[in-house]
């Protein structure tokens, strides 16, 4: 079954459009959804996919269209339209109207050039997020504690293989490219790099360096268990 709707002269930013398109595709019974501006070539694609329905006839290049193919036993176009309206009104989450990405994937879509992620969730759930981040080629600062040491070892080995940093678990101090992460002191930039397994110890050393007139290039925390026999200082060496 096919369905389509048009929103005349409606402009939504690309993040909203993409997330809505993905969310609609995940609705039960929805087989394919195209959301876009109603340009001639976008309509060619709709025709190509045999999703063109008469409702799309009046669409113009400044209009937003949604074309859907769905199983009418499981859903209706009205349900898709309602879901669309709900998603549109939900997408601006915080009080300033700034979109708050709910997952790492959606955060990366908003900031595709990012190369470091800071993770702070209950330890028992952290490994999966770290793994996803490493697979996406991101350095990780893992603030969470209570991460099983087997997970730490496995993930640090993966990070080393990929040439990435996994700072933590239980890492609360780092300064990367002059940007302090979690708890770090305001210190000058300079030529001395510090890799530390103790956050407070690292803070002490970096402030002393600053006090003595030199600055810091990078400050990397490894997490307290990195120097244990089990983990073998994988991040200390990587840093």
């Amino acid at each position, binding site marked *: 079954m096919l369905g389509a709707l048009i929103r005349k002269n409606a*402009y*939504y*930013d*690309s*993040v909203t*459009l*993409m997330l809505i*398109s993905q969310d609609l595709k995940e609705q039960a019974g929805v087989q394919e959804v195209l*959301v*876009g*501006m109603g*340009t*001639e*070539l*976008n309509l*060619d*694609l709709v025709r*190509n*996919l045999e999703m063109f329905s008469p409702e799309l006839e009046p669409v113009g*290049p*400044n209009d937003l269209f949604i074309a859907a193919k769905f199983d009418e036993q499981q859903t209706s176009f009205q349900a898709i339209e309602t879901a669309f309206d709900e998603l549109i009104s939900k997408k*601006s989450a915080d009080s*300033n*109207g*700034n*979109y708050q990405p709910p997952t790492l994937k959606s955060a*990366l*879509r*908003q*900031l*595709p*050039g990012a190369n470091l992620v800071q993770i702070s969730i209950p330890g028992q759930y952290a490994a999966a997020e770290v793994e996803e981040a490493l697979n996406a*080629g991101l350095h990780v600062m893992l603030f969470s504690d209570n991460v099983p040491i087997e997970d730490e070892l496995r993930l640090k080995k993966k990070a080393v293989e990929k040439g990435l940093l996994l700072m933590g678990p239980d890492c609360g101090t780092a300064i990367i490219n002059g940007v302090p992460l979690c708890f770090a002191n305001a210190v000058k930039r300079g030529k001395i790099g510090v890799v530390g397994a103790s956050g407070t110890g690292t803070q002490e050393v970096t402030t002393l360096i600053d006090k003595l007139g030199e600055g810091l290039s990078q400050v990397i925390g490894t997490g307290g268990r990195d120097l244990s026999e089990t983990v073998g200082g994988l991040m200390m060496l990587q840093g």
Partner: protein
Amino acid sequence: MPQLSARRISGDLVEYLADSKPHPARVHSLFTRAFNLKVADGCLVSGTNSRGYIAPMGFSFQSLLTSGWPFSLDQELILHPGGVCSASGELLIDFSNAAIWNPSLATIFLPLEKQERSLQLLTRILEGSQNGIFTPLLPGIFGEELPSDLPLHAAFIARRVFSFLGHLANSEWQAAALDSEGLIGFGSGLTPSADDFLAAILGLYTALPLDEKENKAGFSLVAERILELAPARTSLVSAEMLRHAANGRLPSPHQSLLAALDSGSVFEVEEAARAVLNVGVNSGGDFLFGLLAGLVLMAEPKLVLCDQIKEIDQC
């Protein structure tokens, strides 16, 4: 509602407003970090407050706003050299402290053969990015085989993209102009992907010193055709972007990338390319793809792929 103060204003907007007469406008589109005002004569003026981004015929703000925009969709406003006023004359956005930003591109003088490292870097950045409808077509611009499992949009547009690039590489301007008809307005997003790709090509050809008069005249045929078709074939926001690009005006991150390429510094190129990737969901990636394709075909025209087109046809 507090009055806003613009931090930067583009030189072309200053020039446009210099006649001192009031320009009636209405709020055309509103986003979290940007808005567009449509002036009565059809021009689009953009306000932005995102990471220093400023567009041609636009202005930007110092910092993120927490109180929202001081107007609503379709509201009537008046633009004048001092700022943006409500219909009743209340000043809503003050231009008086704004620094002037020049949206025009400088010419890239660094010879293409000296940009090898920059091209490699741009390729790597784009390969590692999930940004861009056209990005899966990347192997094709280096004469390599395209993946057999291209995503929907990329598979649909691949033949047209490589036909267009092939005709540009062979200086077949009339044919490239015809190809552009099959690209304008295609893709998802507010500025459809193919328009971002074309904007990169237009900007690049404007910025490169095309020595031969024939090439300049030839490419202008392509640019003219794109500008002739865009108003009817794509959204107003995108048609305006193409019009500016054809006149050598690009938004600040894109302009910085072209300047970085001219500097020959891979560090600057990397920083600027990542800033471009952060524009929109796919826009940045599709612009980078266009830029890379344009640079490759100018440096190594033989790489561009008539064979690729045949392969796609066979699929």
